[in-house]
């Protein structure tokens, strides 16, 4: 699989603050790549450098075979960006906004109308084209942000906390669209999010802390490396659970045991088959990975 983004030894400081320190990673084409970290970890700095909004102090960045230092304009046409906060013109209508933004990529006239028709069906905003962006709900505005980012058919879609504060229906719509684009157009998605359930869907995850990579891998690799498994046992009495000699907690109608890995779970089940009459084994969650790696919880972007 081709590396569509290659970052080598990227560093950026703001005065004494080292925002990004010797960062190196790559993103494969067509991948859903999750970039995690609490606020101030260096995610936005990295994204801003990728998009040519910030200059780097050192390091090399290649995007789709183009060097950021030499071919920024070529790179810009490959990127679609959904910013954390909507940056559309709130005084203008949805149509006017998309018309002006499409023109930035030379998409005007019939080409604009055709693309608008496709996107308005895909993201279900055909009925609000004439409405002022400032008067849209958060979910409607987000759909327009995504449409703006997709207008020029980018190869890489950068999503900077795209679903924060959105209603479940809009989140579902956005993820459906992103899934379809990845499947049908092999689009690469570079995601930053505070929702760990979204990160757990990623093909590859990089966790950033204080401008450095703390951990990286597939969600499974990270879970195996940084968390254990949970065994939930139903229909057993507490004295039976106690005989297992493992840390546990009582939950509604069941007990939950924490074991270091699936192998340890299997051994326990084989040793005490009478206790394991009704049970399930689950992997640790990405929240647990994040907590284990950084010592911080990620709840809506607030460090805990």
């Amino acid at each position: 699989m081709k590396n569509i983004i290659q970052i080598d030894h990227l560093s950026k400081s703001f005065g004494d603050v080292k925002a990004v320190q010797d960062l190196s990673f790559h993103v494969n084409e067509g991948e859903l790549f999750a970039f995690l970290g609490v606020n101030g970890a260096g995610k936005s700095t990295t994204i801003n450098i990728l998009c040519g909004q910030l200059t780097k102090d050192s390091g090399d960045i290649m995007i789709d075979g183009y060097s950021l230092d030499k071919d920024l304009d070529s790179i810009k046409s490959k990127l679609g960006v959904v910013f954390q906060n909507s940056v559309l013109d709130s005084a203008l209508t949805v149509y006017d906004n998309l018309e002006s933004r499409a023109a930035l990529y030379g998409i005007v006239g019939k080409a604009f109308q055709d693309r608008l028709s496709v996107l308005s069906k895909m993201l279900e905003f055909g009925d609000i084209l004439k409405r002022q962006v400032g008067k849209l709900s958060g979910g409607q505005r987000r759909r327009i942000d995504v449409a703006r980012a997709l207008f020029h058919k980018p190869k890489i879609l950068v999503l900077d906390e795209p679903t924060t504060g959105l209603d479940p229906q809009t989140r579902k719509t956005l993820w459906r669209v992103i899934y379809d684009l990845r499947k049908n157009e092999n689009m690469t998605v570079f995601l930053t999010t505070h929702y760990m359930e979204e990160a757990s869907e990623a093909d590859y995850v990089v966790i950033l802390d204080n401008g450095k990579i703390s951990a990286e891998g597939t969600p499974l690799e990270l879970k195996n490396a940084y968390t254990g498994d949970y065994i939930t046992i139903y229909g057993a009495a507490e004295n039976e659970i106690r005989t297992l000699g493992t840390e546990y907690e009582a939950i509604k109608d069941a007990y939950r045991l924490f074991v270091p890995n699936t192998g340890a779970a299997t051994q326990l089940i084989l040793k005490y088959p009478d206790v394991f009459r009704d049970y399930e084994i689950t992997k640790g969650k990405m929240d647990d990975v994040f907590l284990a790696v950084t010592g911080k919880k990620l709840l809506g972007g607030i460090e805990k």
Partner: protein
Amino acid sequence: MSTVFALIKRNIKLFFKDKGMFFTSLITPAILLVLYVTFLGKVYRESFTSGLPKSLSLSDNMINGLVGGQLISSILAVSCVTVAFCANFLVVQDKVNGTVKDLRISPVRSSSLSISYYIASLISTLMICFVAIGICLAYLSFVGWYMSATDVILLFLDVLLLALFGTALSSIINIYLSTQGQISAVGTIISAGYGFICGAYMPISSFGDGLQKALSFLPGTYGTSLVRNHAMQGALEEMNRQGVPMKVIEGIKDSLDCNLYFFGHHVEISSMYMILGITVVILIGIYILINFMRKRNP
């Protein structure tokens, strides 16, 4: 080119849809109107009639035409610059809102962005100022019309030059602004101050000698004088035809800033055009240079 057109269209739409920005741009002309209605009109009228020989009596129409000419020239001279500043604040608003990030992540050239802001501000300013000329001329035709067709054409040219000047000046200043507070501060200073320094509220000739000399270095002063000359020339010529001696008329022209002096030397109309024209070219050159330098060293 279609990108630049689309951006110009966007910028103009945003200016006219943003009621705050639009009405702020009209504050200075509104202040002038209020001042005129409350006392300036009376002051202008008395200053004309007091300078005339007692043996001469001019019609009310004549005096109203002259006073009206002074009023509209003040309004137009000020509006060209204040409206240009307010229209151009969109550049700063885009920085404040983060919209500029959205524009700059696209492959559009930064020169296209700069040109589109400049042209959009110029068009917005001209749209308002040309409508203002229409209203002002209608007012003059009601109170006393003495302008020739040439005066009207030159008045449009003066407004165009002043709008070019205001847009170029504001474009340079706005490069260094990046917060809402700075917009408010500069907007207030321009709205309140420009009327004084260009001689719109009170003629520069009524200021002290030192201040007059200092203001003679400002190109906007000559823009105001051009507008004033073309708005009042017809009425002054009519006064001359009705027997007002040339010496008295020259005195009135001195007192109204129709005649300007640079360290005692009378500045001709052609020189005023040259000063304003060259200033516009220099300011646009500086604007391009700053943008170029910032692109090289962001």
